[in-house]
C-alpha cells in the first residue's frame, strides 16, 4: 500500500496516527493523543535547557507510542543501537522489506528544518517510508510538515545518534501485528480518567495543576532577583514550549478539545462536547498569557511578573474545575 502523508500538529501523535492509518486503522491525531492520555503539565526546575527550567504541556516522549499499545491491541517493536552503522543498516533492511519505520531524532541535525527552529531537542519523531536506492536519500514523513521531505543519509544518521539529554541512541520503532478497532465505550473513559488522575492527583507538586501554580510562584519570584533580562528569557522559554514546539496551540489544550469532541460522538455523550468548549476557552486563556508575555519581552507592555503569575493562577483554577468535571463525566 502506498504511504499517505498528512500534516499534524505534534510529532509523536502525528507519527502514530499516520502509522495506524497505514495499517488500515483510521485514527485521527487528536484521538491518538487523547487515547494515550498524553495531556499534562509539568514544571521541571531540575532539568535545565540553556540554563532555563523545562516546562512541558504533555507527558514525556514515547508515552503516546507506548500508551496506544494496550487500547488498540498494537504491538510495537523498539530497537536501539550502540553502533551507528548497524543502526543505519537495520533501517535500510526494514525499509527494504516494506515497513514504515518511526525514528527518534535530534532537530538540530535535520537539514530540512527551518534554521531558526534547529535547537538541540533530541526527541523529535519522524517516519521513514522509503529510500531512493541510487542517491541513498531517505523519504521521510515529518508530521509537522505539510508534505513529505527527503534527507541525506549522513544527516539522518547524525540526527538519530545525537547525544545529550533524551539521546535517541538510534531508536527505531515499528509495529508487528495488526491493530484492531477498540471498544470505544471501554477505552475512552479509561483514558479520560487517567488524564484527570495525572492533572489532579500526581503526588509531586510540579506535575499537573500544582505544577501550574508552582510555575506561577517561580515567575513571581523572578521579580525579587531584579534581573529583567533573565526574567524575560524565562517567560520566553515558557511561551516557546507552549506555542512553538508543535503543540497545536495553547499547549495541547486545543488538540485535546478536539479529542473530546470525537469522544462525545463515539460515545453519544453530549456532555463531553460542553467540556470540549470549556477547554477551548482555557486554551484561549493560555494564548492570552503567551501574548502578554511576548508583549512584555518586546517592551510593548511594562514587565509585570505578578500579573503574569496571577494569569497562570487563574488558568490553574479553571483547569482544576475542568478536570473535576471531566472526572465526573467519565
Amino acid at each position, binding site marked *: 500500500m502506498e504511504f499517505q502523508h498528512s500534516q499534524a500538529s505534534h510529532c509523536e501523535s502525528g507519527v502514530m496516527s499516520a502509522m495506524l492509518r497505514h495499517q488500515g486503522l483510521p485514527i485521527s491525531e487528536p484521538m491518538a493523543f487523547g487515547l494515550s492520555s498524553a495531556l499534562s503539565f509539568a514544571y521541571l526546575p531540575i532539568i535545565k535547557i540553556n540554563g532555563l527550567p523545562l516546562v512541558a504541556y504533555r507527558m514525556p516522549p514515547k508515552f503516546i507510542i507506548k500508551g496506544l499499545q494496550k487500547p488498540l491491541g498494537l504491538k510495537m517493536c523498539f530497537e536501539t543501537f550502540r553502533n551507528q552503522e548497524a543502526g543505519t543498516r537495520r533501517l535500510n533492511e526494514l525499509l527494504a522489506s516494506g515497513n514504515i519505520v518511526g525514528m527518534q531524532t535530534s532537530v538540530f541535525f535535520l537539514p530540512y528544518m527551518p534554521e531558526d527552529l534547529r535547537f538541540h531537542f533530541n526527541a523529535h519523531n519522524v517516519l521513514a517510508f522509503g529510500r531512493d536506492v541510487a542517491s541513498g536519500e531517505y523519504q521521510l514523513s515529518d508530521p509537522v510538515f505539510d508534505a513529505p521531505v527527503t534527507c541525506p543519509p549522513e544527516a539522518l544518521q547524525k540526527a538519530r545518534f545525537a547525544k545529550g539529554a533524551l539521546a535517541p541512541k538510534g531508536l527505531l520503532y515499528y509495529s508487528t501485528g495488526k491493530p484492531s478497532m477498540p471498544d470505544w465505550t471501554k477505552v475512552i473513559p479509561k483514558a479520560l480518567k487517567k488524564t484527570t488522575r495525572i492533572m489532579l492527583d500526581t503526588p509531586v507538586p510540579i506535575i499537573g495543576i500544582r505544577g501550574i501554580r508552582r510555575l506561577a510562584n517561580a515567575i513571581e519570584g523572578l521579580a525579587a532577583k531584579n534581573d529583567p533580562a533573565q526574567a524575560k528569557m524565562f517567560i520566553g522559554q515558557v511561551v516557546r514550549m507552549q506555542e512553538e514546539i508543535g503543540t497545536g496551540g495553547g499547549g495541547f489544550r486545543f488538540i485535546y478539545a478536539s479529542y473530546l469532541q470525537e469522544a462525545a460522538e463515539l460515545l453519544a455523550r453530549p456532555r463531553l462536547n460542553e467540556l470540549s468548549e470549556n477547554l477551548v476557552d482555557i486554551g484561549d486563556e493560555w494564548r492570552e498569557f503567551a501574548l502578554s508575555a*511576548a508583549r512584555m519581552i518586546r517592551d510593548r507592555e511594562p514587565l509585570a511578573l505578578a500579573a503574569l503569575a496571577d494569569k497562570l493562577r487563574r488558568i490553574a483554577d479553571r483547569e482544576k474545575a475542568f478536570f473535576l468535571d471531566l472526572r465526573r463525566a467519565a
Partner: protein
Amino acid sequence: MLESEVPQEGNVTLGGHRKGVYARGDDGKIQLVQSAGWEVEEIVTRQAVDDLNRMAEDARQRVLAGQTSALEYHMHKARMDLPLLSQTTGLWQWRIRRHFRPDIFAGLSPAMLGRYASVMGISVEQLKKAE
C-alpha cells in the same frame, strides 16, 4: 480559537513552512488548520536565537582578542552550552573550560578536535577558526 482567528502573520522563523494548529471551524468542529505563524511565536523564537547569536558574537570578539579559543565560539554557534557540550562529548566540564584557553586549544590532538567537531556537525578545519 476560531478558524478565522488562526494567525497568518508570515513568521520569518518558520522559513516559509506552515504549521498545524487546532481551531474551531464554522460548523463547531475543531480541526487542524494551517498557520503561517503568530507574532508571539516569532518574538520568543527570535529572543532565544538572538541570545545564542549574541553569546557567539561575544565569544568571537574574545577569540580575536586572544582571550578564549575558537572552541568557545563554536560551542555557542552550535547552540550549545557547557553542560550540553560536556554531555555530548563525554568530557568533564572543567576539561572543556581548560580547552577554552587559546594556548591549550592550539595543542589539542586531532582526535580530540575531531571529537568536538563531530558533535557540533562541523569539520576540524572549521573548528580551528572562529568564523
